[in-house]
């Protein structure tokens, strides 16, 4: 019996490496095609807003690994922003407003968890329903009107730089660093993979899949709230109709990054790289003056290619 050559683990690392190469490749190509691309200004523009999406995708990745979906994140981003705005409008202090926002995120996560785990609904249906309901609440309590009146101290949360890089970006890097490490190497998060791979078998070896799934939904909810606060602070606006459809893009990014809809697979690094690829594609189209309407063609192609690649590697492993 051969000794460990863990080439399968390498395969996963290969995917992350391949994605990294794709990112580098796109950056190089774009730099050649446009002088505007490889500039600090451009980097700033991207990372200021899109870093927060990276925080959301971490939550989504955890749920995908566990074998469930969350389609309500876009609506959640909007509602938390709007509710935080409401607290400010009614002259509550900033800590209270922020904590309420985070709490709201946790509650949304808890409701998702209840529907999926306790009522045993399919996560697609449950979170799809939440997506509509949460969005409706956001529009309802604001009558569709955005809120702009945020105090300076709130706006300052996302303003400024640390070591020359935008604050939101640094926050993402820190969270990403911690989560990527723990999901890859930690014992706690290892259990998610077992749950995603075979829920029944996991329970029979003492892994409480219900408890873990509920926890991950709450985590995801808190991540959404956190991201919403940063986004709202950065854009200085809470728009109830914002972030529609973002959940699909994030799921696509996670799948490009190696997650599977069947559960049991995924990596934080892969998801972030997948997200970077999608963001670069968007950015590229803007810079190269290609109509944004065509974005879908490219994203769809990348997603399908990623899925085909997955099938081929899976078949190869089965020999």
């Amino acid at each position, binding site marked *: *019996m*051969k*000794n*460990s*050559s*863990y*080439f*399968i*683990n390498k395969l996963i690392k290969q995917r992350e490496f391949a994605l990294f190469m794709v990112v580098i490749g796109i950056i190089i190509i774009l730099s050649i095609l446009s002088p505007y691309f490889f500039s600090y200004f451009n980097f700033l523009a991207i990372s200021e807003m899109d870093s927060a999406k990276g925080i959301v995708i971490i939550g989504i990745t955890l749920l995908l690994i566990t074998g469930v979906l969350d389609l309500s994140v876009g609506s959640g981003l909007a509602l938390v922003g709007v509710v935080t705005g409401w607290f400010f409008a009614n002259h509550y202090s900033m800590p209270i407003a922020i904590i309420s926002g985070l709490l709201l995120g946790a509650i949304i996560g808890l409701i998702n968890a209840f529907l999926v785990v306790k009522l045993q609904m399919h996560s697609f249906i449950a979170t799809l329903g939440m997506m509509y309901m949460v969005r409706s609440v956001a529009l309802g309590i604001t009558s569709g009107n955005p809120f702009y009146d945020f105090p300076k101290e709130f706006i300052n949360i996302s303003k400024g730089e640390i070591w020359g890089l935008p604050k939101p970006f640094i926050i993402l890097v820190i969270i990403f660093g911690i989560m990527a490490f*723990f999901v890859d*190497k*930690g*014992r*706690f998060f*290892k*259990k998610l*993979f*077992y749950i995603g*791979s*075979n829920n*029944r*078998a*996991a*329970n*029979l*070896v*003492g*892994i*409480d899949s219900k408890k873990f799934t509920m926890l991950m939904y709450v985590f995801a909810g808190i991540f959404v709230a956190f991201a919403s606060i940063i986004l709202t602070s950065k854009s200085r606006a809470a728009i109830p109709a914002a972030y529609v459809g973002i959940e699909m893009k994030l799921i696509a990014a996670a799948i490009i990054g190696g997650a599977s809809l069947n559960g*049991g*697979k995924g990596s934080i690094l892969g998801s972030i790289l997948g997200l970077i690829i999608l963001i670069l594609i968007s950015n590229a189209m803007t810079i190269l003056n290609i109509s944004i309407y065509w974005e879908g063609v490219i994203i769809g192609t990348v997603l399908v290619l990623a899925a085909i690649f997955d099938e081929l590697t899976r078949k190869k*492993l*089965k*020999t």
Partner: protein
Amino acid sequence: MVKILDDEILLSIQNISKKFPGTQALDNVSFKVKKGEVHALVGENGAGKSTLVNIIAGVVHKDLGHLIFNGKEVNIQSVQQAKRVGIKVVFQELSLVPNLSVAENIYGSSYNMESIQIMNLNSIDEKAKDLIQKFNINPKKTVKELGIAEQQIVEIAGALVNNCSLIIFDEPSASLTVSEIEILFDMIKLLKKNGLTVIYISHKIEEIFQICDRVTILKDGKYIDTKEIKNTNEREIVNLMVGRELKNMFPERGESGKKLLLSVKNINGNKFKNISFELYSGEILGFTGLTGAGRTELLRAVFGIDPFQSGEIRIKGKKVNLNNPYESMKNGIGFLPEDRKQDGVFLDMDIKENIIVANLKANSNTITMNRKKSEKNTIDMVKKIGIKIGNIYDKAISLSGGNQQKLLIARWLLADPQILIVDEPTRGIDVGAKQEVYFILRDLANHGIGIIFISSELLEILGLADRVIAMYHGKITGDLPIEKITEEKIGELIMGL
């Protein structure tokens, strides 16, 4: 050997070879199947039986060789073609449409599609009607309402509609109860009476001797021998299958310890009433009974998977509340479920991950996993149990059934249990692997572990258990040491007599 005349032969398999990536599945296999006989095909996992059947059924293409059917060479490229030639295979996973009725399924399997008009008893072919009526199946019922044995009958009825001359059964009794197996055998006798030929693949050698006329043995893709059933015995067949003298199927019994490990008193659940029993260290306690007797439900409750209503459980004298598997594991209990694929193995994870899962603590540092520890523990367990693998990073799905079962035993051994519950551990695994599992379990018992062994196979219980508990309709009907048990006695107890 009696010379077989050409016009006695229905199917002549000549020099069939088939290679898959990495393995020679069939290597120059030749033998003949006589008209009207029930011909058994046996061999260990990987012997090539399924591949051969798939070639005859048109699911897979042969690389080399010839098939001569009814005197004419046939080149079977598809399942439809096989049907037209007159060959039907009843696979383990049946090919019926669950939501359609019996009549629709029978008709639908006919390649003569124009005749689908009125779905009632009158429009079904005479032979099929005979079969359906004889076994009291309502043709209007949808297939999914039927039990597995009845579904098999519907499949065969469909075959009869198409004027089949050869029916191949691939492990038909794997998920049947004892009484359903009787129905199956009656059906096969009926087919034989109607002039059909049957090829019967099974792991259960006893069945072969009950229903078959001749048996062909394959091993490692090669043809070994063909024997007349009346001229041979089980032991000879098993030895030919395994390629070695399987001297002792069952290991010698050991010394049962005096330490009381588990004491269950008056527990009641949905499927079991007022159960009390004890388990001592070093013993293998066999739980036997018919399907539905409540054994699995009882032991699942003991392990904390399902709740029970009243009663108490004590481990080494101390009262415990086992509300979930995690708490049971903390108290030193392990549980190997009946369905290893659905409830046991993490198929798309690797061998190492499958083995360490019941004891992640021992394979990690405080918060992070420890690769070196995991690898060492995995390799130790694989060696100790004797699992045939290539690499600990191979995916578990690539292992054979027997090796997967050993994988699960290794997993629980790593968790260092004092009590191990195993539910039908040798289901669907071949004879050689079965023997290995028996020896492994006895070895664990000899090291002090108390083993609860649920099995529906009387021979296993008689061969392996130190003590036997029989259940019937949720109640314990007998709790006896092995010296006081005979086959007849077990038969009575499981029937509640």
